[in-house]
């Protein structure tokens, strides 16, 4: 008789916490080797991002798309899908939203914003749908298709911005700026998008834990044979999961466009989708667990340049930290050591 455990509990926070601590220790040693002061660097990093209202607001701004892509990957993992394509879905969403943001004019904000957001979610969802349908009806593994779709979307979005959507008279490859009516406001000095992201994460948690649709997702993710036996349409569930996952990633791109960048520029969003994988694993594929993970990593991203300025540590340190965190979260050795199990991966068998 093992632990008493609900099907949908908060999960084990110990491994992520230890992963972060070990990653920071190793990164600290590397800073020391470079002749920098790790304690000072970390202090600067975190006082910049969490020490002031302004800094915290910036942190939440950085964390917003991370919550969403983390959530996108999490939804996939819950249904047994490893969505590596959050990056492509996010870019599709960002471009769609930017187009809607600068093309429609003369709309009031309360109409323009939802339309622009809907564009982003639609394109993200569509890209997710392609991978989901290929998985469900043709048996093509989603890791393959989403990786390939990432490349296709990158190329396609570059092409579109260079030849069709480029700001008139602009030498840089970027779209026009979105209308003022499509800009996301600030609420209590905090970016509005962050509230959307948190609300969605809470909603996702509630849906997964309390609704029949959530139960379908979970069942397919944990044992698709039993799901089929129990009368659940596995194929439809897989496609739906990819549509929702892609839609949420697309929303991440939309909010980034409407609240931060105000336009689409190909290099702007690089890597956000991949951070989502780290965050989803750090949050142990729990819709609420990803929030602290996203804020932590958002804070590191927000404080990185000041850390470079004050402590002389390159901003790439944050990438190093992310890589180390990902490594230790997924490293089976760590998992085995603390969970005393040999067969379970960090996602508890999801996503393979």
């Amino acid at each position, binding site marked *: 008789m*093992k632990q*008493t455990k609900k099907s949908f509990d908060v999960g084990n926070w110990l491994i992520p916490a230890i992963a972060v601590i070990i990653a920071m220790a190793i990164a600290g040693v590397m800073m020391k080797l470079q002749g920098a002061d790790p304690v000072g660097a970390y202090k600067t990093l975190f006082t910049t991002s969490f020490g002031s209202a302004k800094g915290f607001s910036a942190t939440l701004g950085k964390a917003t798309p991370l919550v969403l892509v983390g959530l996108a990957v999490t939804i996939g993992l819950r249904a047994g899908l490893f969505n590596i394509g959050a990056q492509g879905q996010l870019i599709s969403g960002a471009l769609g939203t930017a187009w809607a943001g600068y093309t429609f004019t003369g709309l009031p904000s309360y109409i323009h914003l939802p339309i622009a957001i809907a564009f982003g979610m639609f394109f993200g969802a569509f890209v997710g749908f392609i991978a989901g349908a290929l998985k469900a009806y043709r048996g093509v593994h989603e890791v393959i298709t989403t990786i390939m779709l990432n490349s296709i979307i990158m190329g396609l979005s570059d092409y579109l911005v260079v030849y069709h959507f480029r700001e008139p008279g602009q030498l840089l490859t970027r779209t026009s700026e979105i209308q003022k009516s499509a800009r996301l406001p600030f609420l209590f000095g905090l970016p509005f998008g962050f509230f959307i992201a948190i609300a969605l994460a809470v909603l996702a948690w509630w849906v997964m834990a309390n609704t*029949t649709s*959530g139960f379908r997702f979970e*069942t397919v993710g*944990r044992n698709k044979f039993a799901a*089929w036996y129990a*009368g*659940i349409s596995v194929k439809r569930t897989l496609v739906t999961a990819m549509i929702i996952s892609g839609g949420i990633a697309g929303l991440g791109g939309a909010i980034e466009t409407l609240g931060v960048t105000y336009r689409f520029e190909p290099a702007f969003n690089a890597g956000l989708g991949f951070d989502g994988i780290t965050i989803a694993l750090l949050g142990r594929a729990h819709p609420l667990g990803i929030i602290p993970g996203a804020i932590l990593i958002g804070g590191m991203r927000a404080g990185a340049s000041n850390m470079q300025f004050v402590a002389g540590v390159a901003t790439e340190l944050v990438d190093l930290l992310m890589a180390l965190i990902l490594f230790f979260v997924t490293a089976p050795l760590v998992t085995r050591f603390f969970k005393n199990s040999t067969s379970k991966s960090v996602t508890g*068998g999801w996503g393979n």
Partner: protein
Amino acid sequence: MSDLLEITGLTKQFPGVLANDDISLSVKAGEVVALLGENGAGKSTLVKAVFGLIKPDKGEIKISGNVMAYGDTAGVIAAGVGMVHQHFQLVPVMSVTENIILGDEPRKAFFIDRKSAREQVLALSERYGLEVDPDAIVEDLPVGMQQRVEILKALRKDVKLLILDEPTAVLTPLEIDELLGVIRNLANSGVGIVLITHKLHEVMEVADRVLVLRGGKAIGFTSPKESDEAGLAQMMVGRSVILRVDKTPAKPGKPALEIRGLQVLDDRKLLSVKGVDLIVHHGEILGVAGVEGNGQREMVEAICGMRHRTAGQVLVDGELTKDMHPHSVHAAGISHIPEDREKHGLVASYTIADNLVLNQFDREPFAKGWVRNISQVTSNADQVVEEFDIRTPSAQNLASSLSGGNKQKVVVARELSEDLKVLVAAQPTRGVDVGSIEFIHNQLIAARDRGAAVLLVSAELDEILSLSDRVAVMSGGKIVAIVDSKNADRNYIGRLMAGMKS
């Protein structure tokens, strides 16, 4: 000359199961010995012990007169024991030659000597009369040919004793005939053969001697000369466990489940259910007896919407069920205890409570519209755990924490907790402890007495005979006879199971 393989008094106890109970067996050169038994009879435990993969509690294994130690798998292989696995150990994208030499490649400096490799394969193929194309890519070959490659691979290391594990499970009838010929030829060339199977006619055709295993015990040696298929079937299914079931005579009502002209393909796309007609009435248990692999699984899956029907109809209370989806079949009133509870019956990482509503989670009272009613799920679970005596500290524990018998109780409880019309129970007590078997049997009878029609499919003849009101015998994808269980004669049923006309 000493025997190739000599096993004396082998005993192996696993937690809760005596897998091998004092088994002795010897195999001489040039002899084909069949190990016959149902799933779970202890055949694979025995073979694993020969390879040193499990440590016997008692007993001794000698190969060519030398005692083999536990863990010395390499020594066993070096002594000339080869194995052909049921699931081929081949690399599909590589050629026949590459597959056969894999692991011990002839080399020239740092490179594989492809020329001599090819010659080796051709020589091997000629020596044993097993024709293969050394350059063909394995995945392009038919299954029977792939198996030939597997056999050649095993023979390459100068094998004296070859063990074949359920070699015909994946073959077509024609390929089976060819394989049996190959086995005979190998034996004639001096190789000792152990053939693991539960198919009677193969044993009759090719074996010199037969060891029948049942429930870990050696029931006895016989040979095709001394016995016939009916005799083998009876030894295999046995009468060891006399299961007492108290039941009143059935009071059959109207037909509940009607199956008309059902035809179903198996995984190899061969017709395995060849036109089955059955009627099960309300308030009766119809048992389907048969040696496994005669279409029972495919029939059950087709009735329950998990497998496509190529022809035929399934009616519940006179109404046609919609084809093809477990959901609609379930909605029509058919409950299903699946044969493979780990794969289909349970989600191991869910709580017992969630598993108890696995196919009712989206219905009243467990859900209202889109929202699940978790408190109903919990109270249902507490009640069922109590009622079905599921041994667990809490219904909120994971299903994976339960023993086999208690897992099966969860499945049975779920399928019975509804107001059901038809219950299809496939191997409802497989791998279940005796106490749970009795409990499950009583539950099936209680369901019958409440008016359900029960279609019971089991490989255990005892179970069929003690539970059923009528017995249908299935053989070769057809129902060959239906008899009243009161005047069911075990020998007669055994002969029918073996595919003989009365």
